[in-house]
């Protein structure tokens, strides 16, 4: 902006700064509320007026990872004393930790669902970015008949509503036994992210001067060597940014996961809402699960902050 001169402009600037700060706080309030609920005792999660100041607890986190059942009889003082700290927390909440026949503590479904999310998101990201980078190079450096049409075709596959694609995919997966499997989701997410990866990577590769490769070719490299030894290292930042975007998309995806999985391969997004039944949900446990689930994305968003614009606009706008 032009240098601030008059006192009126100074005042205007101050008002704008104040407004920006207030807006940021309002926008972050829901996220703060999730995070704070994850450390509340259960009885303070749903109070009137809302509880803002409280003694933070780890009980939601213990409950998040353990399978529990209602206490029928109070534990004896000896039992209570012998129990580890986390089991006492569960006792205090009027529940007990479920153990199998040999006395091993049973985990809740959450760690499994979280692992499923990791497996599916990471594998599909590697596949989509891997294939996407090669294809982007092909589009960026070589002439092709109907190139614009092919690129449009690639982009249009991304725009399909998930439910539209899910109906035939569900029927086909049922035939070949891919329903409720990791690979079923991985294939869907790879296809979904591939178009995005091609478009974004093409933008990054377009920016690498063609002269770099030509110099390598003159030096006796084959084109494949030039691609691997010259282009890929130059494109490293772009590849990383694209990978993070693909990961976040796969990590957050809900509709396909809801339709294609129900137990074995279910990821966290359909699982977390399914905990809210018709009864009174324990929001502290749901908040704990949500915080852990959102954490990787929050970290990635921070790392990705300089590429967000480019990624969110399919590489249409570059900074």
């Amino acid at each position, binding site marked *: 902006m032009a240098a601030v001169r008059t006192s009126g402009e100074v005042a205007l600037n101050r008002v704008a700064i104040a407004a920006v700060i207030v807006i940021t706080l309002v*926008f972050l309030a829901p996220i703060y509320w999730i995070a704070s609920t994850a450390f509340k005792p259960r009885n303070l999660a749903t109070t009137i007026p809302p509880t803002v100041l409280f003694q933070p607890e780890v009980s939601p986190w213990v409950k998040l990872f353990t399978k529990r059942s209602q206490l029928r009889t109070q534990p004896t003082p000896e039992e209570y004393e012998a129990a580890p700290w986390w089991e006492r927390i569960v006792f205090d909440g009027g529940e007990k930790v479920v153990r199998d026949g040999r006395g091993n503590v049973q985990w809740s479904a959450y760690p499994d669902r979280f692992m499923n999310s990791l497996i599916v998101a990471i594998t599909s990201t590697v596949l989509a970015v891997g294939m996407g980078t090669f294809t982007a190079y092909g589009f960026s450096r070589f002439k092709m008949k109907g190139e614009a049409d*092919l690129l449009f075709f690639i982009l249009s596959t991304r725009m399909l509503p998930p439910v539209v694609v*899910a109906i035939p995919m569900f029927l086909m997966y049922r035939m070949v036994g891919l329903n409720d499997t990791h690979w079923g989701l991985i294939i869907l997410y790879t296809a979904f992210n591939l178009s995005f990866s091609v478009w974004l990577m093409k933008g990054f590769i377009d920016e690498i001067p063609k002269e770099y490769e030509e110099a390598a070719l003159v030096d006796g490299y084959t*084109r494949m060597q030039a691609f691997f030894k010259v282009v890929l290292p130059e494109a490293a930042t772009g590849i990383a940014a694209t990978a993070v975007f693909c990961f976040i998309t796969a990590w*957050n995806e809900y509709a396909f996961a809801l*339709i294609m999985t129900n137990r074995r391969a279910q990821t966290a997004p359909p699982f977390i809402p399914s905990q809210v039944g018709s009864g009174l949900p324990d929001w502290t446990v*749901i908040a704990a699960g*949500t915080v852990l689930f959102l954490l990787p*994305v929050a970290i990635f968003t921070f790392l990705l902050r300089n590429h967000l614009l480019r990624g969110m606009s399919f590489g249409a706008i570059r900074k």
Partner: protein
Amino acid sequence: MATAVMTRLDPQSRAAARGWSDLTIRNLFVIPTILFLIVFNIFPLIYSLGYSFTDFRASTNAPANFVGLQNYRELLNDPFIWSNFAITAKYVIVSVVGQVIVGFGMAMLLNRDIPLKGLLTTLLLLPMMLSMAVVGLFWKLLYDPSFGIINYALGLGTFEWLSNPNMALYAVALTDIWMWSPFVMLLSLAGLSAVPKHLYEAAAIDRAGPLYTFFRITLPLVAPILMIAIIFRTMEAFKTFDLAYILTSQPTTELISIRLYKMAFQEWQTGRSCALAYIVLIMILAITNIYVKYLNKVKER
């Protein structure tokens, strides 16, 4: 810069003499992706096109009977489907207009020297990166009439957001506005920062008022990027499923994606849902087409 530097596919080139030819490499790099997308995106669509002319139900073993255009005819004559489309249109308009007003407003505020601007922008962008389904779920708690913080903060008493059929759609749109206004802000900021400073200086010399400057300089120059944001959000809002499905189950919030989901996976009217999917698909392709044409036009500049 935007147009790629092309290499001619010359079989006699020196590079081609060693290793694979450029043609081979191009095909090797491009064809697998195209095939993958055909197998997992186009083939399923052809498959469902076939089913859209049948009375197939995936929940039974009964063979599918060919019924011709009956599914399409019945769907297009079904007032309930039209009301689903009307709800979707209302939702798209409310949420996109909201996002443009809030997002563009935020960009105007942020487009100046502000301490910690980078940090504030990153924090503001956080909501749109998070999972709609999971964060949307938490808005159920925020909207709760008795102990939700929204009613408490606004002093609304026990105002019903999600269980009031007339309010629920707006509540869903409000959550969407919270998530996606930062997207419009991000694109608008890019547009605003690209407006040449000398235009503002010239306007100041000419003693142009702030309104005149805004409508004659700022808005026309930001419009192309803002348009990208609008088309993109329109497309996404049209497809909305997660947020509305998780927040409410009111008939007044039954967007077309939700109707499609219910028809296919709860009522198991597979054949008919394939037909509805095609109707939706054609609409999406039309919007996508507009979007891509516009993108290319903007890129050329």
